[in-house]
């Protein structure tokens, strides 16, 4: 295994993307993700890649569309307000079945909001990254190592399913340093063929077209239905979730990313008090790990969603639980990071209630 180095989440993610074969990056600076772009600006020229600081987020995502259509492994990154600007382009990519990797190092919102860590773009990432009938694949790393691992794999997932992949991090994961073992450099000649790419062909085959405009309703319906069949295949094959002390747990916390780190500490503290708590940590937010959450809804007395927002993922937990078990919520918002003590207090409260 590679020697572990101490790196910021933003930088580990960027280096892993390079090693996965990303050779094009288009972006625009915004706190707290700027290190991703800064790192790419330094490293991409060294490996024969292209780094371009676009004039805006809108321009950047359309450059991603173009590079992806031409068959390149391409990435853009931003933070919450910038992702809103990219949403039109993400919808176009989905409509044209173009792969690509989009990083969102979230900050507090709405509007310009703040620059401290937040998870308030969950709905945006899993429901409405743009207009129209579509989903994107969403990873939710929780450590610097996972920032690297998810970035490395994101390109494979994007190519395999021809889908935009988002890595939904936050300012905490982006700015913190932790030990990380970086993945191996991919052999670029081993990357999958893209017979659909709009690359040059000297008249040797029919033209490929990257397009999301279909004026015939029946044709657009057929394409959307086909795309949703692909989404179903992703839901069947790619749900990821980490379980911690769930088997005998009365109270199962569901938390992702930075708040899962806090929740894990709270679970340990609850266990020390004799309360059987556990943690389910979605690693993919779309597809949401329905199977794991459903099993917990059968085995636990209560579920508790812990998030850095006003309550967003809790909707998915409730949909899966479907009334089988009470679903509670605890969150801090605006860039405030919850403390283990706060989460523990909520666990204790639920435990006392469910014991009555």
């Amino acid at each position, binding site marked *: 295994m590679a020697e572990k180095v101490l790196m910021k989440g933003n930088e580990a993610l960027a280096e892993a993307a390079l090693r996965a074969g990303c050779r094009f990056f288009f972006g625009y600076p915004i706190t707290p993700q700027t290190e991703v772009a800064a790192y790419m600006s330094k490293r991409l020229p060294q490996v024969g890649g292209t780094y371009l600081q676009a004039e805006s987020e809108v321009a950047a995502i359309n450059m991603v569309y173009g590079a992806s259509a031409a068959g390149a492994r391409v990435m853009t990154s931003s933070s919450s307000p910038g992702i809103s600007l990219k949403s039109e382009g993400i919808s176009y990519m989905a409509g044209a079945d173009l792969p690509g990797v989009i990083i969102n190092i979230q900050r507090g919102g709405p509007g310009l909001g703040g620059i401290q860590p937040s998870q308030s773009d969950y709905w945006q990432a899993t429901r409405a990254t743009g207009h129209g009938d579509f989903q994107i694949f969403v990873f939710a790393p929780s450590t610097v190592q996972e920032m690297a691992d998810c970035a490395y794999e994101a390109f494979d997932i994007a190519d395999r399913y021809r889908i935009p992949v988002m890595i939904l991090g936050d300012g905490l994961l982006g700015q*913190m340093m932790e030990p990380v073992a970086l993945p191996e450099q991919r052999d670029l000649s081993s990357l999958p063929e893209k017979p659909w790419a709009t690359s040059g062909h000297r008249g040797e085959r029919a033209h490929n077209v990257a397009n999301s405009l279909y004026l015939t309703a029946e044709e657009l319906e057929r394409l959307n239905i086909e795309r949703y069949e692909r989404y179903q295949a992703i839901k069947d094959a790619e749900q990821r979730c980490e379980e911690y002390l769930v088997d005998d747990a009365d109270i199962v916390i569901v938390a992702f990313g930075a708040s899962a780190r806090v929740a894990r500490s709270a679970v340990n503290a609850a266990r020390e008090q004799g309360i059987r708590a556990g943690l389910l940590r979605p690693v993919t937010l779309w597809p949401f790990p329905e199977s794991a959450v459903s099993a917990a809804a059968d085995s636990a007395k209560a579920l508790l969603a812990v998030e850095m927002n006003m309550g967003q993922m809790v909707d998915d937990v409730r949909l899966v639980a479907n009334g089988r078990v009470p679903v509670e919520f605890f969150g801090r918002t605006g860039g405030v*990071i919850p403390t283990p003590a706060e989460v523990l207090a909520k666990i204790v409260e639920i435990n006392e209630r469910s014991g009555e």
Partner: protein
Amino acid sequence: MSKDMQAVFAGFGGQGTLFSGKVVAYAGLIEGREVSWFPSYGPEMRGGTANCSVTVSDSLIGSPLVTEPDAVIAMNQPSFDKFLPMVKKGGIVVADTSMVADLAQREGVRVIGIPATKIAEEAGLKGLANIVLLGRLFAEEPFCSPESLDAALVKCIPPKKAAMLDKNRVAVKLGMES
């Protein structure tokens, strides 16, 4: 084996608090322990103060944001005033008295003041007050082995600044003997 430590390194931007925090994190990494380092990057930075949270532990680290430190290095008065009340009982604060004029005391907390900026300047080590303070913290609360601390300095000082390595070593020693 050293015990777990949650620490805050705080001062003005440019005093090297982020660097000294990184040295501690790297020392933990070298010893195969769990470590995290998290900088302030919010409105505080705009006010000219910079701090970082460092955790070194034998178990997985939850939030990297340290809210109840075992140890604080304070390089200016606002940092000292902010973090002294947050320190755990039994914890320690090492402050640069060249910068912190009002060294308040708190029951149950060891407050140690050394004129780190003056010590560094008199030894021809301008800009290394952060490492002098780190040396003193290390003497009071050994958070790693001496070998790991030295190896961490080697890791954290880039090759093109290799000339700084020995100066940092001297600064650690001066701090330990202060």
